[in-house]
């Protein structure tokens, strides 16, 4: 009956369409033509019903002999090329995302991503988590949800055999070794905090690279206020309430601004703590903070932060640290809190691999981001020493560049799959944005055809620009909505001081 009715229904539009082709005269799509050709309509419907019935009957008869009808799209049993990506940061995740669009299915390639976390951390908003402005999970996108067609493996890479083309990993506990074979490998391992060999600092300082670090810093700040609130000794109280940040780059400045807002904002809940007792100090080894921005913007940021209560120790270095005291080159700071943002180094796993590296330890890649003398292996992001193919300048290890490098690597893998030449990497920075406190930011955008090539913003407009751009870049609609709601709530309610699970 289904086939009969379906074919009968199809007869109506078919009859209408074929109407003018039945005669050699002029086109006859008119009501009169339809009425005069009415018997043909009935004939078409009859033909359709009979055809459908016959088709159904023949299908029923044929099935016992020929077997069931084709059930639809077949799933490829074997996949020809295995692409393995090591690292789930911006570089790794974006490479996988781009490959899903370009290669999965179309070229029968499988993509496997190995990461020691199961989510992508949106680092531009990390300072807001430390400052209790955003919920931690809201700035992390689950890799499995974002990469529907990629096999995501949470594990720690323990070794890469570039000769045998295998990757070894464990399940983060040092057991359950797993070996992955690959045809193409992408190294997007990222970086780690570089404490410049100072073991005391490494032992006592908080690093500021991961979500765990941000949660720990937030918890620690709240803990310091709890202790200060019940501490009668003013010296110890001041020590608890002094927060030192080493490094005046983007990460350090944004963290200083966020922590300063957080620390001074929660004073209402700690009635015995005086505003004057709270101190946020930023230690920076150069003359001015924010070397990534022009001097005028850096000075603006410095002035704004100072007005909001942040102190600066410029041309100073953290030389060492003991519990309760931080040894800075221009004097000791009594503090229980040191947060390290002063340097990063490529992932130490690279040391175990036979690669050409630069003095930082980053893997040297050619113009196509392929490892030197290692075809089929690409490196990008913080773990690679990437040079712009046109300008010859080294590319900075920022998220902006990592994303573009990821796109280039994915397209080059596709080119290899298609036996086509790879493209050289070139990208001109779009600009920089830095939040320095409540509704205040600095922005420097690359604008073509202007005298300096740069357009500078500061204050509220830059802050709005920062929020708009990073909100749009945050992966996932759901995350965007959650962050937007957090930002809106923050306008009306004070920041949360509930301590989370102590991850230490």
């Amino acid at each position: 009956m289904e086939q009969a009715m379906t074919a009968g229904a199809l007869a109506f539009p078919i009859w209408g369409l074929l109407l003018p082709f039945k005669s050699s005269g002029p086109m006859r799509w008119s009501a009169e033509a339809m009425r005069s050709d009415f018997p043909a309509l009935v004939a078409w419907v009859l033909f359709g019903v009979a055809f459908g019935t016959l088709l159904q009957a023949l299908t029923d008869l044929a099935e016992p002999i020929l077997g069931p009808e084709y059930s639809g799209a077949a799933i490829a049993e074997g996949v020809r090329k295995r692409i393995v990506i090591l690292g789930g940061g911006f570089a790794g995740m974006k490479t996988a995302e781009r490959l899903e669009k370009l290669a999965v299915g179309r070229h029968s390639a499988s993509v496997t991503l190995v990461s020691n976390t199961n989510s992508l951390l949106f680092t531009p908003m990390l300072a807001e988590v430390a400052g209790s402005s955003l919920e931690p999970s809201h700035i992390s996108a689950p890799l499995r949800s974002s990469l529907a067609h990629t096999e995501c493996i949470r594990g720690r890479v323990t070794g890469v055999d570039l000769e045998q083309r295998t990757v070894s990993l464990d399940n983060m506990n040092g057991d359950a070794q797993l070996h992955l074979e690959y045809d193409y490998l992408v190294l997007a391992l990222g970086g780690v905090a570089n404490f410049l060999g100072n073991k005391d600092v490494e032992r006592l300082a908080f690093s500021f690279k991961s979500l765990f670090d941000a949660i720990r810093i937030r918890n620690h700040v709240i803990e310091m206020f709890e202790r200060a609130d019940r501490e009668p000794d003013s010296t110890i109280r001041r020590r608890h309430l002094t927060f030192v940040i080493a490094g005046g780059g983007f990460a350090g400045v944004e963290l200083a601004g966020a922590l300063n807002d957080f620390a001074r904002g929660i004073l209402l809940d700690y009635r015995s703590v005086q505003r004057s007792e709270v101190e946020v100090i930023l230690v920076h080894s150069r003359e001015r903070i924010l070397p990534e921005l022009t001097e005028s913007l850096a000075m603006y940021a410095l002035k704004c932060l100072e007005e909001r209560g942040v102190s600066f120790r410029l041309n100073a270095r953290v030389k060492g640290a003991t519990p309760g005291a931080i040894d800075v080159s221009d004097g000791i700071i009594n503090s229980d809190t040191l947060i390290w943002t002063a340097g990063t180094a490529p992932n130490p796993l690279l040391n175990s691999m036979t690669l050409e590296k630069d003095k930082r330890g980053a893997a040297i890649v050619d113009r196509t981001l392929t490892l030197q003398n290692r075809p089929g292996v690409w490196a990008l992001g913080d773990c690679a020493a990437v040079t712009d193919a046109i300008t010859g300048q080294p590319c900075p290890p920022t998220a902006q560049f990592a994303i573009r490098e990821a796109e280039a690597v994915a397209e080059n893998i596709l080119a290899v799959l298609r036996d086509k030449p790879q493209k050289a990497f070139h990208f001109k920075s779009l600009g920089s944005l830095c939040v320095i406190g409540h509704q205040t930011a600095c922005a420097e955008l690359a604008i073509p055809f202007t005298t300096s090539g740069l357009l500078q913003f500061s204050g509220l407009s830059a802050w709005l620009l920062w929020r708009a751009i990073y909100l749009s870049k945050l992966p996932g609609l759901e995350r965007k909505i959650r962050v937007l709601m957090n930002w809106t709530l923050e306008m009306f309610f004070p920041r949360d001081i509930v301590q989370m699970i102590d991850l230490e």
Partner: protein
Amino acid sequence: MQTDLGTNMRNSIRLSMHGQLMNTLIGLSVGLAGGLARGVILQRPILTSAIYGAVFGLLFGLLVARRASSAGTGLIWGLGSAFTIWLLLSSRVMPVFSAMAHSSSMLYDVRSRFPDLVADLLCLGTPVGLAVGTFGIRQTSLDRPRFSLGRAVVAGGLAGIFAGLIFGYWMLVGGFFPLLAGLTQPSGRFAATAAQFVVALILGAAFGVLFQRDVHSYGSCMGWGMGFGIFWWFLGPLTLFPWISRLPVDWSAQNANNLYGAFIGHILYGLILGVSYATFDRVWLRLFFQSDPLNRKPEGPGLHLLRSLQWGAAAGLAGGLISSPVMIATGVLPRVAGTDTPLTSVGGLLTHLVISTLIGMSFGLLFRDESPTLHIGVLWGCLFGMIWWYAGPVTLLPLLLTSEIDWRAGTISSLLPALIGHLLYGGSTALFFMLLEHRYIRRIRLNSRSANLDSLPQRPLGNPAPALWMFAIGLGMLLPILLG
């Protein structure tokens, strides 16, 4: 439709011997009673009419009943079957194959047998379908979605009130067709309004109860709404309203011609009801079903929406290009969207393509996941094209240009050539949309991990969509020809 779902599924809708026997008996007895009523109403020989009804019921019980797993499913199968049989038998098919076939005599013959159509639909198709379908609720072995009475009544009732509110007011102002509340001569305005809303509520709730398990997307809801509207035109203005008003029930083609405006009104009412029901039903599902972590879909609403819009735009553009020659040839759209730009000019063609793209996007939103195979996709597309013909050239365009609507059969008859262009546009848009949708699904299914995330769209077993297409597309196209 079920043949697209494979042999195993076909086997699964076979009934037990007892169930088959009961269905046949119910079909036979209700058909016999309907045939008797048909003979009495049409003043035909009672015995012949009773035999005709009994044969209809018997065939329905034997061939269709196993698919009629609910009253709504049975109703649509019954209407589709009754219409098909009426068209093929009452138009005296045999002359079609002979050289004696004469167009005007056949058209006249079919027109004169219009009362038979109404009688077949209301005395045979409706009662037999409803009876067999109601019995089929307990008998069928189909693995169908669970029925929720609360959801059906609430979503349907709200949709009915909403559709009644906006459409009833419009119709009353325009005086296009009598509404039930206007027939009872209530004591005051409040009573009239209350009666109107009660009727709207009942109609909407009935829609939900009858078709909850059959409808799928917004598009199919509109299709069912259109079918429901056409059915209510036969039942309401042609039958119940004069009967309530103690006037003679007149099923002649002449009276149908007089009530042709109400036919279009009922189609548009059905479309509004369908799309409103889909909206309320989706909200209900979102709140009480899809919010359950066990029922989450792998693809978020944002991605789903964007893909539908993207494919719909591409398919609409292709459909616009394909249908342009027919639109120009029919000469019904000499001006694009009522503007001064001729369709044959570059600007006019571009405007036409932009409009086609936008309408294609609406197709993407309405009809996603509805097309497992080519012919099913094309038929939904044709229905979409027909909906746009009734909504566009027949209603909105004259309303925008002249602030008046002329729904007389003669006027609509002059717009018939545009229907062909709309059917071609809808069909080709659906075809391209289906190709894009299937291409995407096939591509991601190559990856074994993705294979269980997205599958080709399917409709539940025994779904009466083919009968709906036959009924809605057939009558939507036939009545303007027949009554104009």
